[in-house]
């Protein structure tokens, strides 16, 4: 039996062992150099792996930073359940932040379109980082997810107004990360930059990491809208004229706000089956997300410059 950090196979590290060692190294550098780090925790599979790596990096100490969930109030119920449990199990403080303005104005994905993501997530994140004075925030973004991510540094510098300038990125060489910054400036740090979706799934499988059950197929109430299968997760879902939730065997490849996340019809109910389906599938992971399509081709790059993760 080989585990990611188990006995070495003839002293040759596997790709997962190298990735794991790199991620742990990155996290320790942040803790050693930042004054007030925090881990952005979104309850998805990438967050699950990142949290697991944090436990490994600092064992036997608990990870020496809090978890921050910038919530939109529109996540799946199952995500809230796992979020609270995961923080408890890791012995970490969990901070949940809601943008008060978004709350007051009742911003929601049904009536407000792109404004929903902008106010709850992008603005909410900036507000939360400013409120607590965090100077380094771990995020679970991967370079294989999206084209503009492929060029982002692992230690990604942000101005005092949280902006990312893709043209003025610091060169990043060897295993040397420049974490220096002036007061008010901050770092977004992506410890799993070099992991692919397949690596994430394999690692979850190998290390037996708990993930939200929504990644596994089960009969769930759904409606079909604009070519996406949307799960009716609670009674806030405004059904249109003649629309009736239909039970379908579905699962999710990526998790976000439930009204914005498309499901796939699937019979994959175990991890190996999920991986099998992922490998044989013909559409990319972010395709189920409405958010990437706003504003055309360079949509994510634009969001990132404005401070989105």
């Amino acid at each position, binding site marked *: 039996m080989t585990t990611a*950090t188990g*006995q070495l196979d003839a002293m040759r590290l596997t790709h997962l062992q*190298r990735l794991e060692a790199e991620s742990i190294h990155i996290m320790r550098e942040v803790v050693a150099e930042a004054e007030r780090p925090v881990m952005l925790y979104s309850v998805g599979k990438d967050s699950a792996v990142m949290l697991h790596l944090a436990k490994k990096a600092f064992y036997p100490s608990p990870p020496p930073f809090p978890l921050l969930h910038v919530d939109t109030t529109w996540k799946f119920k199952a995500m809230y359940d796992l979020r609270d449990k995961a923080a408890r199990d890791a012995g970490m403080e969990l901070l949940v932040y809601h943008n008060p303005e978004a709350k007051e104005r009742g911003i929601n994905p049904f009536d407000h379109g792109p404004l929903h993501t902008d106010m709850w997530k992008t603005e909410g994140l900036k507000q939360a980082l400013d409120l607590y004075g965090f100077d380094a925030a771990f995020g679970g973004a991967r370079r294989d997810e999206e084209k503009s991510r492929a060029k982002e540094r692992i230690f990604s510098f942000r101005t005092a107004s949280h902006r990312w300038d893709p043209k003025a990125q610091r060169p990043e*060489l060897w295993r*040397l990360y420049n974490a220096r910054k002036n007061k008010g400036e901050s770092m977004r740090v992506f410890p799993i930059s070099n992991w692919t979706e397949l690596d994430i799934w*394999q690692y979850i499988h190998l290390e037996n990491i708990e993930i939200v059950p929504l990644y596994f197929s089960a009969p769930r109430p759904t409606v079909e809208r604009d070519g996406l299968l949307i799960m009716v997760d609670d009674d806030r879902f405004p059904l249109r004229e003649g629309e009736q939730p239909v039970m379908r065997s579905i699962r999710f490849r990526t998790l976000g706000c439930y009204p914005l996340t498309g499901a796939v019809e699937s019979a994959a109910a175990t991890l190996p089956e999920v991986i099998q389906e992922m490998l044989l599938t013909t559409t990319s992971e972010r395709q189920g997300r409405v958010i990437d399509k706003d504003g055309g081709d360079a949509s994510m790059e634009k969001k990132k410059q404005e401070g989105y993760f």
Partner: protein
Amino acid sequence: MSDRLANDPIYRTDALIAEDIEKYLEVHQHKTMLRFITCGSVDDGKSTLIGRLLYDSKMIFEDQLAALEADSRRVGTQGQEIDFALLVDGLAAEREQGITIDVAYRFFATEKRKFIVADTPGHEQYTRNMVTGASTADLAVILIDARKGVLVQTRRHSYLAHLIGIRNIVLAVNKMDLVDYDQGVFDAIVKDYAEFAKSIGIDNFVAMPISGFRGDNITTRSANTPWYGGPTLMEHLETVEVDATADTAKPFRMAVQWVNRPNLDFRGFSGLISTGTIRPGDAVRVLPSGRTSTVTRIVTLNGDLDEAAAGQSVTLCFADEIDCSRGDVIAIADDPVQAADQFEATIVWMDENELLPGRPYWLKIGTQTVTATVQQPKYQVNVNTLEHLAAKTLDLNAIGVANLSTDRSIPFEPYAQNRDLGGFILIDKMTNATVAAGMIHFSLRRADNVHWQATDVTREHHAQVKNQKPAVLWLTGLSGAGKSTIANLVEKKLARMNRHTFLLDGDNVRHGLNKDLGFTDADRVENIRRVGEVAKLMTDAGLIVITAFISPFRAERDMVRQMMQPGEFLEVHIDTPLAEAEKRDVKGLYRKARAGDLKNFTGIDSPYEPPQDPEIHIDTTSMTAEDAAEEIVRRLIP
């Protein structure tokens, strides 16, 4: 399934996924990882090759392919054919310009390996990006356009790959389809390249004829090149031996990142093992202190390990409570690393602002950050001709060799032996930008041979005899602000109080000690460094030193502050607005500068960085010189 597909490793994988996923996962747990870079000139087809590798290893999904086809028709350069380059050119700006402008990382995997590709641009001004991409690579693919042969750019890329220590070089002669797969063309290019490679110390390389656009010899042997008997690009990438394996055979070294101390009963040292292996019971030495102990445990969340090797992140426990903290290096006791504070290194400059010899920069190496100053370069390398050129400084994308010194002794190894303990970055102390990357050649013996001569009459004694506390009153401000006038008044007042003082004035020092220096940024830095050293010797002699220098840069004023004993450096900002100083223009210098007769004049065409938190602030618009002097003396001797 056709023969071609049945022999294709990618499609065999597909069958296994469908038939036995558990078996597939088992196989894929044992994959290794290879990181490589592709280098080529603008039109050599780098992005196309990477796009092709992604496409052939099925890393491109249907929706991406649909977008790609649409994009190819809209902005592509290949007519109606799929333009694979569009897959990898990420940022909006460069998609419009049709060029790659930064380092991008791509991922694909086969049965045997996971690959991380650094896509690095070929433009001359982007040496910085290529060095960055190469720093983490195990292998370099040097692309050549078969129609053009070995170009200046080819030489540059090969030199940089070799400089950064990449031992596995692949010469991919691309666009063979455009020369009718002519063996003669291929052989001539390989011969040409071999001669050049040998001249810069590349002993081995693997050459292959390919077409990224057509897919020849990428994943399958091409029927178009029957004369070629070597491996396909993918076969080679899957089987070549990686450097990480060699690191395991070297002596044990680990830089301490973080001390893990959850409670009084546990104290562990966390880090990533750079080279070698470690087992409980091994004797280790901590550098630079030189203290020794024995490893008792290798702690991980999954349980203690019997052995750990290069590339793993671990936490070590020792038998003894010895001093060990972040920045220290743990090495095997009988073969430890050296420590030194002066080095010769190759430096790659990566910032718009040129190197200022003598200016203090942060130097990060391993897990420690120290202050370092770089001397004037011994030479700069012309990366196209490899000639050595005389250089006073290094500007963006320049590569040179220089000596540098650190403010304390640091454990290190030559870069050729250890990238982690021999590679460093320089960071600007004001902007925090990463301004350079460096590779240590060796330490300078001088560090060992010039000892500090301990003297019996101490600086405390000097001060006691004079019955005063030594200090430096450092007056900084624009030309014409009134520094010299105020400094002179301060010294007169102190003399009347029987204090032993000395006034160092900018103009006067430039007549003697610093008469070889001009007014470039580099010379200004050296000017202040020398004055700082003189002031320091004078405080050792017990004097109160008053200086009057424009000293426009914060970095140098901070450097002088660091030289002095704590509390002995008092920064005095003689604050006069530029308009007011220019109006006074006592020496007529502003008029000359405005007329263009005087270059690099502070406030006109050279910046002044005002102190952010000076000990004493003098506003000359609301205070006479006499009052200012009185205030400074009152602050020095309350």
